């Protein structure tokens, strides 16, 4: 029997997880195609290279010899066209490349919302390796870059602000929402992060939109104009970080059905036979629970890779992500979330919020009013155990059980101060008033 050739476009976490699992389960021929970097690297850690915490090589989770040893063929090329009839790819170089089954795992690109000047030199995002290289060139220090303006208050925006501030580059941070990441975080947590961003001397402007990016005679960024006030801010760098979207333009010429991303069913199959899509670029036809149809998250990319490997190796399997979880770090404050905490409690839900007096630690729990069922938790500055919360979510634990046993879920280092008593006391007090 002919050895099946599985071709994966993209060497990010989804594609590489898939390849590793297929290799564990089978002897198929596997090729991973990327035009971004020779080897898999941790995208989430790009910031640490610019900050001088790590070098490029540290970002690679596997030694370079890993790929050959596991017979994972790496191809550096940029795919221009996918011909699903002939089962063939065309590269930018003109080379053609055949596949038996194709997996699209090409990730995201950063959003541009049609602002005048958005393609000028000096405007960057922070998604791929080339973005990092460009940033290093444009903003090596505060002499070459006297001020940077960041547009868009999300996870990448705050990372970019932290990065630039480590090189003593003044940063103005324009956030459309009332508070930082307020479209995801409840106001309490969002304000806590607002304060922390300002503590790091970032000029944070809330409720502020970009009108246009102004350029000099050479087509280089010179300033930005703010919509609300008309104020002109001089700057040498503009960071566009209002989210990401699937990087699927190269598929427009193919017969694969697209919407924002590559449309897939729960089996991660696209509209074309033997073509699959996973990770940031995949868009679920039917959203799964509360999850958005496109999820640009490290963990979901990994989980799709784990699932699809089973399907491709004969153990057909639906993509069934478990309970939602995520994490991030905003300057010095760590954030974890398990289950669902919405910006405002949903219909029939209510919440409990505790904040430490230092204003840098808090937890926020959402639960169902009627049944008291625990829905989700946000935690800032306190580490919590994934396994314990996953268990509580599975067994539909009540909020009382969660609060009562919060200590079991603590994951802070040894000898750290515990706040469970404070939290429990506040919860009891509030329950009393609510009961009255």
């Amino acid at each position, binding site marked *: 029997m002919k050895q099946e050739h599985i071709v994966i476009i993209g060497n990010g976490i989804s594609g590489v997880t898939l390849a590793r699992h297929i290799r564990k389960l089978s002897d198929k021929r596997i090729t991973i195609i990327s035009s971004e970097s020779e080897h898999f690297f941790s995208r989430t850690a790009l910031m640490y290279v610019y900050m001088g915490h790590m070098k*490029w090589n540290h970002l*690679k989770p596997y030694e370079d010899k890993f790929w050959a040893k596991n017979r994972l063929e790496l191809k550096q090329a940029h795919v221009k066209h996918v011909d699903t009839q002939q089962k063939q790819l065309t590269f930018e170089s003109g080379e053609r490349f055949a596949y038996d089954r194709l997996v699209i795992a090409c990730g995201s690109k950063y959003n541009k919302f049609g602002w005048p000047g958005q393609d000028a030199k000096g405007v960057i995002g922070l998604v791929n390796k080339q973005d990092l290289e460009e940033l290093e060139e444009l903003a090596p220090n505060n002499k070459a870059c006297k001020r940077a303006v960041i547009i868009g208050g999300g996870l990448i925006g705050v990372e970019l602000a932290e990065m630039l501030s480590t090189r003593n580059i003044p940063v103005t941070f324009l956030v459309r929402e009332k508070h930082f990441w307020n479209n995801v975080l409840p106001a309490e947590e969002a304000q806590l992060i607002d304060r922390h961003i300002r503590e790091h001397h970032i000029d944070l402007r809330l409720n502020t939109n970009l009108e246009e990016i102004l350029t000099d005679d050479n087509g280089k960024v010179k300033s930005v104009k703010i919509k609300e006030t008309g104020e002109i801010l001089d700057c040498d760098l503009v960071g566009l970080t209002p989210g990401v979207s699937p990087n699927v333009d190269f598929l427009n010429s193919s017969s694969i059905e697209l919407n924002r991303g590559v449309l897939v069913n729960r089996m991660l199959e696209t509209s074309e036979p033997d073509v699959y899509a996973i990770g940031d670029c995949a868009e679920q036809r039917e959203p799964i629970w509360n999850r958005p149809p496109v999820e640009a998250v490290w963990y979901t990319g990994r989980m799709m890779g784990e699932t699809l490997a089973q399907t491709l190796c004969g153990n057909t399997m639906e993509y069934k992500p478990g309970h939602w979880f995520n994490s991030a770090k905003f300057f010095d404050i760590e954030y974890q979330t398990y289950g669902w905490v919405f910006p405002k409690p949903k219909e029939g839900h209510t919440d409990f919020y505790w904040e430490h007096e230092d204003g840098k630690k808090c937890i926020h729990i959402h639960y169902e009013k009627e049944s008291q069922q625990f829905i989700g938790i946000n935690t800032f500055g306190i580490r919590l155990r994934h396994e314990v919360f996953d268990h509580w979510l599975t067994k539909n634990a009540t909020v009382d059980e969660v609060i009562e046993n919060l200590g079991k879920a603590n*994951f802070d280092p040894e000898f750290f101060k515990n706040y469970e008593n404070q939290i429990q006391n506040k919860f009891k007090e509030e329950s009393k008033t609510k009961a009255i």
Partner: protein
Amino acid sequence: MSADVNMSVTGNAPEQLSVQQKLSTALGLAGLLIMSLSVFNIGFQPKILWLTLSLVFVAAGIIWYTKASYTHKPEGIKNDGVYFKSLTNRGFWAYILGLVFTGFYIVLYFYPSLLGLNSEGANTGVVALFDPLSKALSGNPASQWFVYGTLYTLAILGFGFKFLWKYRHNSYQRLRTFSVMFFQLGFAFIIPEVMARLNGDDFSLPYYNLVNIWPLNYYNFEQYRVDEFISAGTVGIGLLIFGVLSILVITPILTYKYGKRWYCSWVCGCGGLAETAGDPFRHLSDKSQNAWKLERWLVHSIVVFIVISTTAVVYSYLRYDDYWLSGTAFLISVASLLTVVFAWVMVYKRQELQKDAKYAAIGFFVLILALIGLHFSGMSNNIFILEAETLRSSYAFAVGAMFSGVVGVGFYPIFGNRVWCRFGCPMAAILGFQQRLFSKFRITTNGGQCISCGNCSTYCEMGIDVRAYAQKGENIVRSSCVGCGICASVCPRGVLKLENDTPAGRINSKEILLGNDVDLMDLVNQNK
């Protein structure tokens, strides 16, 4: 410019020192300059004034530098620009510092006369500069080792202070740093000096740092020390018994409960220096699999070497002189102990050992038995083919001086701060063996939260590829882990936690991580 080349070649803002940092560095260097000049017998008089000045300058310089570096910044991880600085990225200053350190150790170990230690007559040079302090503590004039001990303690206290500020948000880091500072100042420096004061004509104890345990303290059971212990009556015998119990009873119990960290990053002086003065170099350790392989071969060979060498030395005096334990009985005890340990491991822990470790264990065990057998067969007049003295002195030179000192500390700025602990220390190897096979300690990985960023691996001073485990959702149970806890500190997503828990389920290899569909996790993780 490609990121592959390494971004650190561009000279950027973070690498520049502030005015205060420069001034404080100058102050500290001025203190060292006084000591350096004193080597050339520049008549710093009165000595007590100049010695105080030099020590105070160094200490004040470090404290000032710490304040200038950390006090104006919010609490948190302080690794900005580590790879941009010449000193911490194997640049020009790193090599200069490496050369200075190495040179100092070579002079210290092999040419102490250059420092002013005179075989006849009073001290001169820098050793003489330290006489007032030595006399105040032990009543005796200083030696080159006293000078070294003082500087060593000063470095741990000074840079320990710096570390305390750097990690002021982290109680684990602070507590263990207080601990190494305490053990260095008390047990390694002051107590032995003061004990020396008690020595008289009819009572003499060897210089003994109670927490410097054999085999790290490879000379602890040499004849002159054992004789001194015995001659010092109950106290001496007590100390001798304590020395034996330390390695055979006390350390196994503590390592079972807490992992080897209780020693390596809470008590030990070598670890103390590595964690304080060596902290800025921790990321320089080699994380490759080849380095790991070298580590396993080298460190375990040194264990075999020191066991044979010590056995030979002890046997050589037990055989000829009159002690309550006969040479033959001693050899039989050593062989029995090794056999018991070996049999236990092979019976109960065979599955946990990787193939090569098993082979190595078998090989070394056979070697030891063969050597002992050789002796009983009477084929050689010498013990173990070589003379015991040759073994002892080559160990003292190759391992005691060259490895732990010249290479171990001298190369901090090049190979990182734990080269000795990782590749050379027989104590760490024995504790590591216990930690791997018989301990409650592990670094727990928090479900599926790892993003493979690599901060943990980068900042692991022992060169453990922590991420390789964390990204698989697997706990980290490695013999070399000294439990410094820095991986857990630098992790941006709260993925790692050092803890002691029941040994069951300590090693949990997983194929599919938490967060995915529960059925898939069960299917794959159990079907292996």
